């Protein structure tokens, strides 16, 4: 049980870090300051999974608390 909880927490952290990474590399699509184009273009072909995470994350944007609570398996 504890092991599963630890894994879920780590998984959530990794997903969030991947999301931050994607926003930094490809954030120009939503108006963020961007790295030099060549940096984004070089990494873009390797980021199919990351695009999915970013879009998925944007769906939770209006209710981050509920998402966090459900991910951490907390009872309130």
């Amino acid at each position, binding site marked *: 049980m504890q092991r599963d909880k630890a*894994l879920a927490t780590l*998984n959530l952290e990794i997903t969030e870090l991947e999301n931050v*990474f994607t926003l930094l590399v490809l954030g120009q699509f939503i108006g963020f300051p961007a790295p*030099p184009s*060549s*940096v984004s273009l070089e*990494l*873009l*072909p390797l980021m199919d999974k990351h695009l999915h995470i970013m879009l998925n994350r944007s769906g939770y944007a209006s209710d981050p608390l509920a998402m966090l609570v459900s991910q951490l398996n907390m009872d309130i």
Partner: protein
Amino acid sequence: MASMGRHIFFTGKGGVGKSTVSLLAGKFLARQGYITKVTSLDPAHNTADILDMPLEHGSNKISPGLWAQEVCLDDYLKAYLNSVEKEMKARYQYTSAFSFTDHFSAFKYSPGLEEFALVRAFETIRQDAADVDYFIWDMPPTGLSLRFFQYPKVSLVWLEKLAEIRSKIIEKQSVMAKIQGDKDALVKDKLQDSIHGQIAFFKAFEALLTDSRQTRILTITNDESLSRAEALRLKKSLSELDIKHCDLVLNRSNKVANDWVDEDSGRTVKGFVLPQCSEQFIGDKLDEYLDMHVDHFAIIFK
């Protein structure tokens, strides 16, 4: 293999005589027995006009030891974008059913790609010319040149930040693998590999630009306030990038002193003087023209 040759960049405001001085400097060095290549990176180049001869795509032999090339930045940009597009098509195969990949052609107009095309052209030409002793680069006007010199530093700031995030992700993935019982798990991360590859490239490029033994920047100015102000601004901006080996060349001036005083700051600026290297058709009179200025070039390249 990349040449170990030295690089001399001629920069300055548009119309101050960069292309003419670049060619004469190339001729001067070729006469000293060095294999010299003059490359115009200015999108509005006029090396062929000055020589009054057509320049083929690639290197053109002008005289013994002297080669010249006009770079078409669009070609370098296209080659790079084609490689990215190929990779994209392989990864996102389903898009080809709708011809979505045609829309990638808009990448060409992304801000910042023009200076990256300059970087690509610079690297490709350097790699392809192993036997060249001196590369003379006739640079675009100040704004684009400055962005070219800034490109490695700006890219490294971003890449190092991205590498830091990837390291955290890899570290957490390793912990996850260990919890799951795979103690020897080696997390492979293609993004981190690509980022490290780019960091190595830009660090080497930055090291080349900041090494005064390999690189020299000569900023051309005329004896009038606008081009002089721009030259001094460029020198200051380059200094902020740790590129401190930038000398000024006062072209089209009758002054005789090698050092001249910056009227705004009152400081003496190390510089060189060329009397009348103006933009004009030299044609096949390159030797004759250099003879008129040879003493000045001897001082510049002492």
